[in-house]
Structures are given as C-alpha cells and as structure tokens.
C-alpha cells in the first residue's frame, strides 16, 4: 500500500505540482477540479487512482457489512447461536453488551461495580485537571493525593462501610489506568534524576545511572515482569508478601524510567552551554539552575518523544497479562474464554483497541496542543 502510494504521490506532487499548482490544495479549489488535476492528470495516475479506489472501496464495504449491516447486536442470554451462524459474515457485538462489565471491571464483585466506575471517572477528572495549565501549581499535588486516596478507598474498601475487595479481584480498565498513571507519575521524576545523574561530574553517580539505564533498557519488559512476579518473592523473608500488582507496578516504573531518562538526556544535551554559564554566573546553585533554567527548556524540547514513550508505556501495561493480572486486555481475553462466547475474540479485541486508542490519541492530541502553546513565546 505504501509503495503504491509513493508511486502515486511522487509524479503528481514532486514533478507536476510545483509548476501547475503552486501551493494549491483541495482547500483552495473545488474538489472535482482538485481531483482532476491531481488524481487523473496522466494515464498512470488515473490507473493508480482507480486501483487504489477499488481496494479502499472493497475494504470499506467489507468492514461496513461485517461491522454494521450483518452484525448481531443482541442475543437472548448466552444463547449465541445467532452469532455462530454469521461468523465471518457479521460481527457479534452482542458479546460486548453481554461482557461489557467483565471487560471493564474484570472479576471485581458485580454488585460493587459502581466503585471502579467512579474510579475510572476520577482518573479522567484528574487527567482533565492536570491538562489545564491554570492548575499547574502546588495545589495540583494535593488534588492528586486526594484523588488517589479516594481511588484507593474505593478500590480496596474495608472502610466507611465499603466491602473489602482484595487486589486479586481487581480488573479491567481501572488496573490499566492504575498501572499507567503510577507508571508515568513515578517513572518520570525517577527518569529526570537518572538523566541528570548520567551527565553528572561525580563518577560514582554517573556509573550507577549509566549501569541502571543500560541494564534495564537491555532486557524486555516481559522478563522484568516475570522477575517481579516469580523471582522477587524468593528473596523476601518468609511470611512477607508484596502484592502482585505492586510488584508489576514497580517493574513498569523501573522499566519506563530507563527509557524516559534517555529521552530527557536528549533534551538536556540540546540546551546551549551558555544557559548553564549564565545560570552559574548569577550564582544559582546546581538544583536552582537545573530546576529553573535547564529542565523547563529541556522538557519542552522533548515533548514529542516523551509523549511517545508515555503512549508506549500505556500500551505496555497490557503485558501484565503474562503474569496473570487482569488488566483491560486480559479481561477481554478472559471474557471470550467462556464456552458460549469462545471464538468471538476479534470483537472483544476491537472493543479494547478502541479504548486504548481513545486514551493514546488524547495524549497525542494534548501533547501537540501543549507544544504549540509552550513554543509560542519563543517565536517572534
């Protein structure tokens, strides 16, 4: 596809466009005329346009007839015969309706589902507040602490008349949000320290940071998760156990920090030496210089790769399914394990993919806006 596309764009835009249509896009001229000048201007462009249009149309028609026209939206109870009859022809969205709660909340007690629901909305509210620049002050820390306390109380319960729910029964979207949120929130400051340490003049600090970053970066996250879930408990004194989710969380934080540290180091390297010298000559201490001059500039430079890593981390939390934690993806996978629904994995995976996409796309969009906003004053 990409190959065909490059064939299609190169003659039109690279060769013909500069002479015929200086800077004109379909925004400036009527679509029909745009199409004639760009898609049907030579015989091979016409041919390519038709071939590509054919494939696009076939794919779109297939998708619509599978996902909408022939889809089954509802079945009586777990009687999935209607779905089985149309396997490969239509989607069985009835699965989502039936398993919605399981996918979203895993094995959390059914009658307590309002609690993880509130938790999800609390997370969304916290993200929303944090995204607004006018809340970027000390109060944000308190807002988060309060929010996370409420989230903890809701998830665990055991106080205020809430039924206690042990961590093993948590599941679904709250798990994914917990892992991603704590992962980003704790890995980020750790990575800043690692990046600064890697550039430190103190040999011991530097060696420790380099070793850490290279070691952690050198192994797959899955192996870290295995170590956290299988090996780590062996080293603990008898009787002492640490929550499986917590162990996975720590593994994710340590892993993400190594990657983020290198991203941030890239930003640090881009800061001109003169900025350090100006800060030094004014008598600022190392931490003042770092906090007021270097990091604000460095971080803003690396917003794109930073968010790239955040998005990667958000999706990487799904790897915890390998050590049996019921995050969103694992819940979806488990939902179709039930005999009645076996074979409808595609629908379940599409559903969670949409959820992942919404979060990742929001992060991406927000970072673009933030970047634009922050770089405004740098231009004349």
């Amino acid at each position, binding site marked *: 596809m990409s190959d065909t596309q490059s064939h299609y764009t190169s003659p039109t835009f690279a060769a013909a466009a500069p002479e015929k249509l200086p800077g004109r896009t379909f925004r400036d001229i009527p679509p029909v005329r745009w199409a004639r000048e760009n898609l049907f201007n030579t015989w091979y462009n016409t041919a390519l346009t038709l071939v590509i249009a054919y494939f696009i149309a076939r794919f779109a028609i297939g998708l619509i007839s599978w996902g909408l026209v022939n889809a089954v939206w509802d079945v009586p109870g777990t009687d999935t015969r209607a779905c089985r009859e149309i396997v490969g022809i239509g989607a069985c969205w009835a699965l989502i309706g039936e398993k919605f709660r399981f996918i979203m909340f895993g094995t959390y007690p059914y009658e307590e589902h309002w609690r993880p629901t509130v938790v999800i909305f609390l997370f969304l509210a916290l993200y929303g507040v944090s995204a607004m620049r006018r809340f970027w002050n000390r109060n944000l820390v308190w807002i988060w602490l309060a929010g996370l306390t409420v989230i903890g109380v809701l998830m665990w319960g055991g106080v205020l008349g809430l039924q206690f729910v042990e961590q093993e029964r948590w599941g679904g979207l709250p798990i994914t949000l917990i892992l991603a949120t704590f992962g980003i929130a704790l890995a980020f400051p750790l990575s800043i320290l690692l990046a600064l340490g890697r550039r430190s003049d103190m040999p011991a600090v530097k060696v420790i940071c380099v070793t850490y970053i290279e070691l952690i970066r050198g192994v797959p996250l899955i192996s870290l998760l295995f170590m956290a879930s299988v090996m780590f408990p062996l080293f603990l004194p008898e009787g002492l156990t640490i929550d499986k989710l917590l162990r996975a969380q720590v593994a994710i934080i340590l892993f993400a920090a190594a990657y983020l540290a290198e991203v941030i180091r890239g930003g640090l390297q881009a800061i001109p030496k003169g*900025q350090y010298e100006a800060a030094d*000559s004014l008598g600022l201490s190392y931490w003042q210089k770092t906090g007021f001059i270097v990091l604000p500039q460095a971080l803003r430079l690396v917003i794109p790769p930073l968010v790239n890593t955040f998005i990667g981390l958000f999706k990487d939390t799904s790897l915890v399914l390998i050590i049996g934690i019921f995050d969103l993806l694992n819940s979806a996978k488990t939902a179709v394990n039930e005999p009645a629904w076996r074979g409808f994995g595609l629908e379940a995976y599409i559903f969670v993919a949409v959820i992942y996409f919404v979060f990742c796309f929001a992060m991406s969009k927000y970072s673009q806006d933030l970047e634009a906003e922050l770089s405004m004053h740098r*231009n*004349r």
Partner: protein
Amino acid sequence: MMSAEAAARVATGPIIEMRNVNKWYGDFHVLRDVNFTVAQKQKVVVCGPSGSGKSTMIRCINRLEEHQQGEIIVDGVELTNDLKNIEAIRREVGMVFQQFNLFPHLTVLENLTLAPIWVLKQPKKQAEETAMYYLERVQIPEQAHKYPGQLSGGQQQRVAIARSLCMKPKIMLFDEPTSALDPEMIKEVLDVMIELAREGMTMIVVTHEMGFARTVADTVVFMDRGEIVEAAPPHEFFANPRTDRAKLFLSQILGH
C-alpha cells in the same frame, strides 16, 4: 606598566588578583603565567587576537573555567574547588556574554528577578522593583513582560546587563559584549557600559571596540598566545605600543 593613578588605586587594595595563573586545554597552553591585578573601580579593557586567551582569562575570574596553576583571589576570597567560595564570588561578579544567554523561557522581568529572589533571597516585590529600576536604566522598561526572543539583539544585551546588575555585583565582566550585535546596535550597548563605568563600577571588558577602550579604560591589557604582553593606560598603549605583537595587532584592528 601602570599609570600613577591606577597604581594608587591598587595600593588601596586590589579586588582581583591573578598570580602566575596557568591553564591548559589538553596540550594547549591557553594561559601562561598570567599576573594581573585589578583595583576597585578600575576599568580594564582586554584585547588581543582571537585565541589569545582573553575570554578564558576573564572566565577564570568567576570560575566558568578552572585554572590549573597559580592563584586567583577575588574580593579577598581565593578560588578553589570549594563550592561555597565559588558561589560567594559569583554573587559578587556579574558577567555579560557575547551571546547574551538570556533565559528564553522566562520573560524579561523573570530573567531579572530569578537570581535576586533565589540567590539573594529577596522578596519578589523588592526584586521586581530593582529589576524595573535597572530596566529603566538600560532604557527598555516597556519590554519587561516580553520574552527575550521578541527583542532585538541590542535590547537583549541590555537586558543581560540589567540582569547582572540586579545582583548588585562589585565587579562586572564583559566577554565580547558587542561582537554578536548588528553594527547599528553596538552603540546602545556601549552607551550603557560607558554609563556604568562613569558610576564607578569595577569592569573588565574583553572587546575589540577600541573607541570604547579609549573612552573608558584605565588600563588596556593586550594578550597574545595566552600571555599578557602589555598593560598600559590607553593613551600610552595606542600611541606607543611597546611590543611588535601589539603593533601588529593594532595595525590590523585599526587598519580597516
């Protein structure tokens, strides 16, 4: 080597003393036995061909560069690896750079108040008042809330001077302050520096602006290949340079 007047000031107590200062970048001997004294309120212009070590020398004074041999004493404090001493000296010594080095993510006012608030622990209001005072002095108070990127080079350099002055330094170092400026902006910066000199600031200025040296300097120091070759009052230095190297340099710089 020094005028009687300058010598008299030295007698009142030097504020900067460099004794047998040596520095190497790897094998490159960048400062060779530099001996150099600056009295309070003295204005020194340092000139010399590029690569002669003039910038390195003044950057040793606030420890942006480390010297490897000899001693540098600033306002009675010797520069060693002791961070406390370094920070103390940096509070007393302001520096203006060729590339301005303003903080691009902060407004002009924030550039000026950051160090007074955090290093001198001044209340924000007081720091802002001081900042506005110096912005008036360099004649751009109306730019206080703009970002450095929105200012011209000359304006940026004046902000940089004001930023240093907000720390109430005893000594000001200027490292080729007009070299990165368009010709029409050089004067506005030099005017500010001349004004500052009139008020009795101790200044060491690395520059090729010989007109400025004539007007302001008590002493012109000529450096070549890491050495101080000559140090004399400007009228002596420009009229009768004693060494061939200085003659050559002057003929090159004044020739065009």
